């Protein structure tokens, strides 16, 4: 099998991209809706909880060095129970790519090209993520080395442009301990951060395994900080009422931007930035899903499975009838309440207990 290697810095950056890709668009509105002016606390709490969840996963990985979850689950639970776990992680990975494909395509269609059918967007993105997955983890990590800084610089640039219109007093009181609201606001970003379960699938690719824990936790906390900054900025710009009324408040801010009254309407550029950072996540999940399935089937080459994703991903993307259904059922209920908690916390927790009992550590 072709062994791919990434550095710990690359892993950190990949985790930041994966965490921010969904949370930076979906997060601010929901967090502000529940937590109001304490939104920043919700974001940070979500990051801390995600880091704690990641530590659980990392502890499990440490019990089986050099193996992915698809490999060690079979060793730990035997093929009858182990293989379904490998299948489950492939399913979750592909499912997340499918709903993400649908969400991006639908948003692009709604915002920019309402008269164009949905399928060209889904098809184009599917080809891109499968091609990236085909090229492998190293290529995805290298692309992210370029995409993440450029996207963040673009984001900072946008925030600077919008800053003069902001009203910082909308963020007051900063220290409002609305505990139930803070906890409720934590759920969505925590679910988005839960996609970090993919470290269970790519951890053996790290060139220095000893740095895995630092790299992963650093990535989650940095993403949490960035999300808190974005959320707080949205609050300054729109206030808690308007910010929670919009599905994508960042887009609303972009609509109001202009440079010298010559360049205006920056939403396509915001969408482009979001698309690029999401392409990293989708490619990585497709790669991880294909790899997991390959290892579950005890095959060597993951590429045929990646090719098969060309059929599976559009099917998953076309499952929801519309964006509302996609968000409320396929993302919020199925992904955030069932699939991700199982993949990120429940299965690793159970496997860790069994590993401890069987003294695999």
């Amino acid at each position, binding site marked *: 099998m072709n062994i791919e*290697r990434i*550095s710990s*810095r690359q892993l950190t950056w990949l985790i930041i991209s994966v965490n921010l890709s969904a949370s930076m668009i979906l997060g601010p509105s929901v967090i502000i809706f529940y937590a109001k002016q304490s939104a920043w606390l919700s974001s940070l709490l979500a990051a801390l909880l995600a880091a704690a969840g990641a530590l659980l996963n990392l502890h499990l990985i440490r019990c089986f060095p050099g193996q992915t979850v698809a490999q060690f689950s079979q060793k730990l639970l035997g093929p009858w129970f182990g293989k379904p776990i490998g299948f489950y992680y492939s399913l979750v990975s592909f499912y997340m790519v499918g709903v993400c494909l649908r969400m991006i395509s639908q948003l692009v269609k709604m915002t920019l090209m309402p008269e164009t059918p949905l399928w060209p967007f889904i098809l184009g993105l599917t080809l891109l993520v499968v091609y990236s997955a085909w090229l492998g983890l190293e290529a995805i990590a290298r692309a992210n080395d370029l995409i993440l800084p450029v996207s963040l610089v673009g984001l900072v640039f946008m925030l600077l442009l919008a800053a003069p219109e902001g009203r910082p007093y909308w963020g007051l009181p900063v220290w409002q301990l609305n505990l139930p609201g803070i906890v409720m606001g934590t759920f969505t970003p925590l679910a988005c951060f839960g996609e970090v379960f993919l470290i269970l699938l790519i951890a053996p690719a790290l060139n220095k395994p000893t740095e895995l824990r630092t790299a992963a936790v650093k990535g989650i906390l940095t993403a949490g900080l960035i999300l808190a900054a974005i959320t707080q900025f949205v609050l300054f710009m729109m206030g808690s009422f308007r910010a929670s009324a919009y599905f994508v408040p960042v887009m609303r801010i972009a609509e109001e931007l202009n440079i010298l009254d*010559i360049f205006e309407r920056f939403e396509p550029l915001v969408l*482009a930035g979001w698309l690029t950072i999401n392409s990293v996540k989708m490619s990585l999940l497709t790669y991880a899903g294909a790899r997991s399935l390959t290892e579950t089937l005890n095959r060597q080459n993951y590429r045929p499975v990646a090719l098969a994703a060309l059929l599976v991903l559009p099917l998953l993307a076309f499952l929801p009838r519309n964006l509302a259904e996609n968000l409320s059922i396929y993302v919020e209920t199925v992904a955030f309440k069932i699939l991700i908690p199982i993949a990120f916390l429940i299965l690793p927790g159970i496997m860790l207990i069994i590993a401890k009992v069987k003294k695999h550590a």
Partner: protein
Amino acid sequence: MVPKKRIPEMSKGQSDPEHIISEVERAFGQSADLQVHRFQAGAGELSCVLLYLKSFIDVERLSQSVLVSLLSLPTPPVSMAKLAEAIPCVGTKELSSLPEFCQAVAWGEAVLLVSGFQSGLSIPLQKYEKRVVTESENEKIIRGPRDSFVESLWSNIGLLRTRLKNPDLRLEVLTLGARTSAEAGLVYLESLANPLIVDEVRSRIQRVNVDRLLATDNLTEFITDAPWSPFPLGLRTERPDRLASALLDGRVGILLDGNPVVLVVPVVFWDFFKSPDDYIENQYVATSVRLLRLGTFFVTLFLSGFYVATTTIHLEMIPQPLALIIAGARTRTPFPTALEMIAMEIVIEILREGVIRMPGVLGQTISIVGALVIGESAVTAGLIEPIILVVVAFNALAAFVAPVYHAAVSVRILRFPIILLSASLGFFGLMLGALFYLMHLVSLRSIGVPYLAPVGPLSVKEMGDLFIRLPLWQQNSRPSYLRPQDATTQAPGQKPAPDTERGTQAEKAPAPDKAVAEKNHSPAPNKET
């Protein structure tokens, strides 16, 4: 698959000169320039035969140096080695097999056969017309050396040696092309180039088994890491200073006899935006020009697509006054913007190709006809928007800002898919195309070196000679992605300053890295992949 040579091996008893002559004649098919000159030497006791191609040999030297010496021999020599000593030519070689005789004649050497001896002698007397060293046509610079490579391998090596007067410079000559028998030279600095890279290049060249290798570019296609990629994975240069600089980075050069172009490997994507000028101009000029080149790369690739996307799908992004001008121009033309753009881009490509092939004077005429008549007439006739003409013309100029011609041409081709994607899916399509290109670029390697290094994988330390060009006294290390054996390029404290400060600088500066020195003979793999 190359057919095996028809020339039979020489068995004992077949070393008779007449037999060899007939075999060589048979191999050359009674070629008109194959000469067989029989004469008696050594006071008439030696029957000698000279075989040579009169088109490829210095006949005057043959007569004056070889024939005169042989005819004046007082006694017959006891061995072929003794006979070689009597000939005042360097590089004579003893031959013993039929293929060797044929190959020597084909390479322009005179072959001397003497009756009674088992072996023959090859005397290197090649003479062919050589172009004088002139200025490079394709890699022009404003200041700096003007000379460029010519078609002779050995002249090119000479040009290189004038710049690298270093015994460390290694030259390995390999013969390639079963029918062309071209000599390829592999050059590198032994103390710098990573042995793994040199071995890899050598083995890839040796693997080439084809019957024709007429241009360096032919060789590139056989040794590249990604044969289907449109991006060049080797730098082709005509400039000896550029090759010398590449070797000093720890790269490997491949020269091919009969070609004025040298292939440099491994390369990274950013090398195509660097020019020898960058190191002659000061750092501010060099940096601004380099940024300009990078900018024009993106302009070349995306401007047409961006224009098509904004004017056909995202019109809301354009400021109102400009949108009105574009809309006004659009009303006069019957075709969709994308079609006009593609048509004009194709016209420009035709003009470019036409001007290259046309004789000098005509070429200029054609470019004027193309630019004025076709462009202006198309606008007047209402076939093309004037703004499209502006975009296409700007694009055509921008494409050739890149200092390496073949890279510029590749980029020009890649615009067309972007235009089509932008026309059908707007910015989404443009981004999709850009991401496909990005993913392809990051997956490429040139002799194992990541093509997008030091950006992907990221190495901030290497950025001093990438988008910006730091002062030369700050560029203390060679690119680490090439894994050179010696990473440092200069002693610390090179910043010009009074002697007292220089002393302090040298103290402050890190001592020539011991780790680097240790690593010299055990190149560590790249930390980042």
